[in-house]
């Protein structure tokens, strides 16, 4: 049987990052092929190259044995390749049918006016093939996320694609919807369509896929048949790399005060009954896969998002946090994972950014800015955090990612925050700068500040944390002591969905403290 898709030795770089290195992949007709790997392993990038969204730097792609040059999304569609993106790409103001046939609208005889009737009929036909009760004329913006996902799938089906790429298709679906989706996938399979299925969810892979290809750090690790391979084997293929960094010593913190305690935090499905304690001088690692609810918990404690219920206790006193302003007054700081969007005014200089949250401390008559005091403060932080910048008057956008991150940290230190949430503190910064950030976190902890570090990189979690909390689907699935914890332990907790827990083989290792 000629494979539908063969990818060999594919390279792809982005400025500063080598995203794919000699990546390989093969897809047979009528096969569901799962593509797995940690966040940042290169799965999505590889599939975006196949779908014509990115262009390869080197390597070759064969479609049904023939070399193909996939220069654009349109070229991919012409070759019968469709992709359903993780972040939905729909036009909210258009109807479902209009979305599905965008760019390929049926025309009336004259070839000028659209044939809206044919458009809706064709869409209704696809929906009925999917057993989907949805009006083709429904405006997409009014639909639930699950329904929007179905519209995306219908769109892919409308191309009569031979290759269908699904990037985390079940992220927003409930069980019944997932069952429906799997029904559709099986039907497509029987029609000879090849499906690439990107997912982190082990139970789903076991149920739906025929083979699994694992990627790590942009490279091909291996391909195994799903039936005869255990979940543990797949996890160890994903994790694979050996830990070379030295682990920091875990101090004995049992005598330290609890500075932050949260009990039974809840918000719809995003945060389900989350409780934990944080001690003075402690670094609590928050591990889990993307979308596990870690950022949501941090933002909720910080008052950036509302909560349905739960208690927050700061230094022994129950508090109500309605907005970030309340949180900051209580000495809680949150360092966003997206520095550029939320953390920094990149067009302003270093000094202005550092004093931004505490500008009122640098005013005379509550109005006039004390420029000299600001510069002195800025310089002391530049020195203390070893920020590499020509001066405090340099615009932040000219600094490297690591130094930008340090400026965000300086902002919250200037504000005297005792409790700091670091959300992916080393994302997008190079190895050397990472080490500097690690040292800084250790120093801050040694000074008595309490730190929650959210990270999707397991080696980072293992290296830095004094204690590790793992989340999955909005729940705290377990807590591990830093000593002796392995990447496999964390992965098991991070993929521990309700369905798996029920089966029992990988039951919870640690209970969440309450």
């Amino acid at each position, binding site marked *: 049987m000629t494979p539908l898709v063969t990818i060999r030795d594919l390279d792809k770089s982005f400025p500063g990052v080598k995203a794919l290195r000699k990546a390989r992949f093969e897809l047979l007709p009528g096969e569901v092929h799962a593509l797995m790997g940690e966040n940042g392993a290169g799965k999505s990038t590889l599939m975006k190259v196949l779908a014509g969204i990115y262009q390869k730097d080197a390597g070759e792609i064969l479609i049904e044995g023939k070399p193909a040059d996939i220069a654009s*999304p349109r070229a991919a569609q012409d070759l019968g390749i469709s992709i359903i993106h993780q972040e939905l790409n729909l*036009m909210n103001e258009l109807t479902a049918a209009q979305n599905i046939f965008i760019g390929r609208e049926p025309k009336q005889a004259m070839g000028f006016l659209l044939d*809206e009737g044919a458009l809706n009929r064709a869409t209704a036909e696809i929906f009925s093939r999917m057993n989907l009760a949805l009006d083709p004329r429904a405006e997409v913006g009014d639909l639930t996320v699950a329904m929007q996902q179905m519209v995306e799938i219908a769109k892919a089906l409308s191309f009569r694609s031979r290759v269908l790429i699904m990037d985390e298709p079940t992220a927003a679906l409930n069980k019944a919807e997932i069952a429906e989706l799997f029904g559709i996938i099986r039907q497509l399979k029987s029609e000879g369509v090849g499906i690439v299925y990107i997912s982190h969810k082990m139970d789903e892979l076991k149920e739906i896929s025929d083979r699994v290809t694992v990627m790590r750090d942009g490279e091909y690790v291996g391909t195994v048949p799903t039936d005869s391979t255990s979940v543990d084997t797949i996890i160890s293929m994903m994790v694979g790399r050996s830990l070379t960094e030295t682990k920091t010593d875990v101090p004995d913190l049992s005598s330290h005060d609890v500075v932050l305690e949260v009990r039974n935090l809840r918000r719809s499905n995003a945060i389900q009954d989350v409780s934990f304690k944080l001690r003075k001088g402690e670094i609590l690692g928050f591990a889990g896969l993307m979308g596990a609810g870690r950022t949501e918990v941090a933002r909720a404690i910080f008052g950036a998002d509302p909560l349905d219920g739960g208690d927050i206790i700061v230094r022994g006193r129950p508090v109500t946090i309605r907005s970030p302003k309340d949180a900051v007054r209580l000495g809680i700081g949150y360092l966003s994972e997206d520095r550029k969007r939320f953390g920094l005014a990149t067009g302003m200089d270093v000094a202005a950014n550092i004093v931004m949250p505490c500008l009122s401390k640098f005013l005379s008559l509550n109005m006039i800015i004390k420029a000299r005091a600001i510069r002195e403060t800025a310089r002391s932080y530049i020195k203390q955090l070893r920020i590499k910048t020509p001066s405090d008057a340099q615009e932040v956008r000219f600094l490297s990612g690591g130094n930008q991150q340090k400026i965000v940290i300086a902002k919250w230190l200037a504000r005297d925050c005792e409790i700091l949430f670091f959300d992916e503190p080393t994302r997008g910064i190079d190895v050397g700068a990472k080490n500097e950030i690690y040292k800084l976190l250790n120093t801050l902890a040694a000074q008595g500040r309490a730190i929650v570090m959210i990270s999707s990189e397991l080696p980072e979690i293992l290296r830095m944390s004094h204690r590790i909390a793992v989340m999955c689907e909005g729940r705290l699935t377990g807590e591990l002591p830093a000593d002796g914890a392995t990447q496999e332990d964390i992965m098991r907790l991070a993929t521990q969905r309700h369905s798996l827990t029920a089966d029992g083989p990988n039951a919870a290792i640690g209970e969440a403290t309450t």
Partner: protein
Amino acid sequence: MLSQGAWQKILAFASLIALMAVFSIASENFLRSDNLIGILQATAVNGVLAVAATFVIITGGIDLSVGTLMTFCAVIAGVVLTYWGLPMPLGILAAIAAGALSGAVSGTLIAKMKIPPFIATLGMMMLLKGLALVISGTRPIYFNDTPNFSMISQESLIGAVLPFLPIPNGVLILFIVAVVSSLVLTRTAFGRYTFALGSNEEAVRLSGVNTDFWKIIVYTVSGGICGIAGLIIASRLNSAQPALGQGYELDAIAAVVIGGTSLSGGRGTILGTIIGALIISVLTNGLRILSVAQEWQTVVTGIIIILAVYADILRRRS
């Protein structure tokens, strides 16, 4: 349940009727047929410009150059007809082509060179104003050598057939432009892409549609319609007045916004825009009949715009 756009249209239409009711009670002159025709006549130019702006605003863009582009096109018609003495159809063609070409330039600046629409069309606004003055030598160009030119806006084809309905041709042109534009927006692929671009440009691009090309076409069509507005105003004044034009873009954008087209793109209707343009004309006319000073008319228009958009925001929030 009615869609958001439908609600906004009903709201705008109700405001129009309410305004007319208030003015007809306040002044018996308001509902006289010559006054109503005067209102329509006054709406013709702003209405056509507002239709042009609607296309662009639905894509999530903005066009500040519609007013001075209109004047530029009128001057081009003057050059072709008065300076060169060519026949009238060529003058009409030249004005519309000049508009389309200028729109294509704006579209290229925005789609290909990635200049934000506000800046690109601000530049075009000033550039066109200057060019109109340079070409005309800062003096009006009269159309005395083309006696039929006044027909475009002033005479009434409808009145020739139905003597009791002496609606000027300028209004007829507005009607035709509006109906055709509405059909194009709702019934053609081009119209579909116009909405899609404003709704989620990246999604359109990933669907394999050439977004840059269609964006340029949107601005080109919009520019061509500005050329039509240029012909109407030149015909009404029997001259191309090169100093005119700036300020018209704001009235046009106001009409679009009052008519319920979202400035963030993806939503909008031509019918709404026409109602919006009528509201502005009725307001101006009614306040003038009531002898309210012109300065105050501007103040009231400003308040109406803010209220119209706020009403929209309130409803969206609920």
